[in-house]
């Protein structure tokens, strides 16, 4: 199928560029590490007190890193002056959206794994039992983040103050996702089953479907020029 092939070649190209330039991943890893330090310094060394806010801190970490990483979705096009090339490519532009979304999901997966490991290390957490359930929550929340983030990154790619406009647009839209993921993560970390937070998971799943659908359907309009 041409659509899948075109989406895949976008992922392939982005992975290749990232592998050779190594720009994004290194910097984001250090950013994650620094975030942890910042949280500790800002909230004090009292580990017990911090443990209560752990789900919130974790998702703050994901979202802040996500803002940086997702905001850079089309940076490689901008730096290489290839944005027009994307606009001129014949065929369904949504394939580009799907390709960029897949790339962003991979990126977020790596960032989140790193942050989770760092959190486990710094807060002395044993996540082995809750990991599968936690992974489900994180996966659902990340799709919602990346789906809208990829779309908005395309919209702000050619705007002058994009570094400001991107988070300003993304954060309010992601408010329900933040509420849902933090509540669900809270429950999961306490050892509760996924069934107990089924309503939150359904909300996240609904958000995922809506955001990806809107992204696929409206991307052509964003990439018109």
């Amino acid at each position, binding site marked *: 199928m041409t659509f899948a092939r075109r989406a895949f070649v976008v992922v392939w190209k982005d992975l290749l560029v990232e592998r050779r330039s190594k720009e994004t991943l290194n910097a984001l890893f250090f950013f994650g590490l620094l975030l942890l330090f910042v949280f500790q310094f800002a909230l004090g060394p009292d580990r017990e007190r911090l443990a209560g806010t752990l789900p919130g801190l974790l998702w703050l970490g994901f979202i802040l890193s996500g803002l940086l990483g997702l905001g850079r979705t089309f940076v490689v096009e901008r730096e290489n002056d290839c944005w027009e090339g994307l606009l001129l490519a014949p065929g369904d532009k949504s394939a580009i959206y799907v390709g960029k979304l897949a790339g962003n999901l991979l990126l977020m997966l790596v960032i989140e794994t790193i942050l989770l490991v760092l959190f486990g290390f710094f807060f002395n957490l044993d996540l082995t039992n809750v990991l599968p359930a936690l992974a489900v929550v994180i996966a659902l929340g990340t799709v919602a983040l990346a789906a809208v983030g990829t779309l908005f990154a395309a919209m702000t790619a050619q705007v002058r103050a994009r570094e400001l406009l991107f988070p300003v647009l993304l954060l309010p839209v992601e408010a329900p996702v933040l509420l849902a993921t933090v509540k669900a993560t809270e429950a999961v970390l306490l050892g509760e089953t996924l069934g107990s937070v089924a309503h939150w998971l359904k909300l996240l799943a609904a958000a995922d479907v809506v955001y990806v659908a809107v992204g696929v359907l*409206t991307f052509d*309009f964003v990439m018109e020029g």
Partner: protein
Amino acid sequence: MSSLLGGVTLAGLVAGLVLGFGIAPREATQGNVQRIMYLHVPSVWVAYLAFAVVLVASIVYLVRRAESADRLAHASAEVGVLFTGLTIATGSIWGKPTWGTWWTWDARLTTVSILFVMYLGYLLLRGMIEDRERGARFAAVLGIVAAFNIPLVHFSVYWWRTLHQPPSLMKPGPGTMPGVIVTALLVNFAAFTLLYAYFVTRRARVLRLEAEAEA
């Protein structure tokens, strides 16, 4: 035409104010400040109406590329932000004497605040893109995303609140609602809706004149 609408709107607003702040009974526990509900609740209704119009106009614009649809979306978003601002302000004024705090994480107030910021972002986006056609297109996409987000916001905030306490502290009042209160509310609903229509038509007209001057 618009002056007729303006006249009817004015009449409706006056009637609504008289009913709400004059004729309707004084609430027992909260006192007169509770009357602000007659402004607060219709404001929310109008805000939701405005954003629904933004959704429809945005879709119409993307499909038909009619400039008038774009202007309608723009005007409706502006008026919607105005009324969400009004909702937040009236909610805050209600809260201060009643519960001693300017802000409360009441479900409606929280939801409306998120909507306020979302659609402010919509207006910000429009302001930051110089190319008129691109601005209209992007705003339409954002208008669609924001509208589909509204139910998600509503449910997530509602569940967030109902874990420990009742979702909205700003209900009309304990017990049943006597007829006068219902009437007052309905009149204000109607008056505010007319006010919305008045503002939107005037604003859309200004946008059209601006566009014509440029071409």
